[in-house]
């Protein structure tokens, strides 16, 4: 009898805990899904990687398919915003390798990635590059003079 009672208690424990774990796990998964959905709606493309792909499309058509490309920008690459802008641009332009504007030897081609309107031609000229085309959205392709 004692053994039967023990078995019944064991069975009750297993079944009840299975029900409880199942009942807790699904709402937790649902809550996680809701959080994910809210975050996605509030900040889609949080780091701008997808936007950068679209912005860089014109430059990609002009630049050689591989090799080093100098990166000109009005946002410091060491800042958080500047790092994000650089990394998303590197992702969009790969397998071209972006190097800082002061790299030695200076690459033949350069891409400008700007946060606001400015005299892009003068910006490139000061760094030894002449403007090839302003492809819009703050993206400019240069070639070494």
């Amino acid at each position, binding site marked *: 009898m004692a053994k039967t009672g023990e078995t019944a208690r064991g069975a009750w424990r297993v079944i009840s805990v299975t029900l409880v774990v199942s009942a807790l796990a699904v709402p937790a998964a649902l809550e*996680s899904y809701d959080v994910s959905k809210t975050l996605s709606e509030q900040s889609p493309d949080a780091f701008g990687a997808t936007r950068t792909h679209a912005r860089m499309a014109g430059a990609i058509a002009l630049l050689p398919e591989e090799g080093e490309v100098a990166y000109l920008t009005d946002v410091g690459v060491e800042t958080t915003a500047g790092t994000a802008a650089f*990394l998303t641009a590197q992702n969009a332009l790969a397998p071209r390798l972006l190097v800082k504007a002061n790299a030695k030897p200076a690459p033949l081609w350069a891409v400008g990635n700007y946060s606001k309107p400015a005299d892009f031609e003068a910006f490139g000229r000061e760094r030894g590059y002449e403007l090839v085309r302003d492809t819009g959205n703050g993206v400019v392709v240069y070639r070494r003079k």
Partner: protein
Amino acid sequence: MLGLLFVLLTSVAGAFLAKAAMGRGQAWSVARMLGPGIGAGVASLAFFLLRWAGVANAAVVWSIAVVMLTAGVVAWRRTKTAAGGREAVAAKPRSEWIWVARVAVVLSLALLVGDAMTAYSASPDGEWDAFSIWDLRARFMAAEGDSWIAAARPGVNAGLAGASHPGYPLLLSGWIGMAWMADGEMESVVPGTVSVLFALIAAGVLFAGMRELRGEWSALLAVLVLVSPEAFRSQAGAQCADIALSLYLLMWTVLTAMWLRDRDQRGLLALAGLTAGLAPWTKNEGWPFALAAVAVTCWLARRGGILAFLAGFVPPAVVTILFKTMVATGSEGVYPPTIAVAFERFSDFDRWAAVIGAYGRHGIEMGVAYAHPLVLLVLIGWALKPVVKAERGEVAWLALPALAMAAAEFLMLVATSADIRWHTGTSVPRLLIQPWPALLVVVFCLLRRPEDSLPVMSMAAQRRKRA
């Protein structure tokens, strides 16, 4: 779409190769789940060697997939006709209440896929580490010509600290790069699919492995505990390599546990060796795991089987070492520059406090309070009870490699050259997930089978059920 076809083809090839290595009598359900992990590992190793030799292009990449599939099917057919082995018998559930756990698992996995799809639709290029490291390296690997080598040079990402990782191994980026090369386009859907595939396969390997080892009831509970942490679910769509690493730890643990039960099946050990060798090919953290796995396997297989393990382990380990020593240049910016500096940092109590605090904080935040994975594990442990000492066997040893890796990661954070708060804040949630599936296998192997606590169904009840 051709990229996804390539992923599917190499995954199927991996399943045949796994089944052939496991030998006759081992469950197809486990081999199927091992497929993507084995396929990704073998294909990416071959791809790297061919890239290094300068002969990689779309035709070569497709040829690798076809050769893998052909070799897998031929090897499987040979083992199918060979004698020996035993049919594994999974414990049959003795209560109809199991349907509740089955439904909960299906819903949880469906919501996990929903999580990943939501993340993908918002950020197709993945999280910060995905677009700046893993996906970027895949883009270099997929390029024609010699551009791929940039992935292993310190100049990538202009050498920015925390973004330039020339020594990161190439399993994930290599597999995605192959798929892109096969396709001819670099579509984000490939890394997005691979990311959620690795998460689902981790759940699949855990389910199939636990079902073989401890029965379906334990397997369902283990999967519910695996996918309950928010940290695991969010990584499913992150497109980083952490779940991939956790998959190889899990595969080694499951395969070694299966071998402990059936020591004549040396193929299980060879596969376990391959998965242990693929861990450092996935992430640098895989090294402490792999070395501990070698030590533990040598101990467990001291009466035979070490050679089988090494036959699987050595090829990926050698390729990873070749990549590290002959191809990759530069060093990791977050590593301490010298041993003396590392010890100086180890003697700083504030650094220990910062790392312990981060582990505690992120450990608590792993899941919502009412379904925190540790809460679920305590409940399950209370219901199932530990197995008696005589049944414990040697399975507890299998926790050591995952724990060794976790300890190494902890020490690495204490000694980091990066800002410790930034480094712990961005790393610890992912680090907690890496050993999690493997440790669940050990925990559930040390608990009684749920079926053993349930009364045997009477013949009449069985007849009623069949009817």
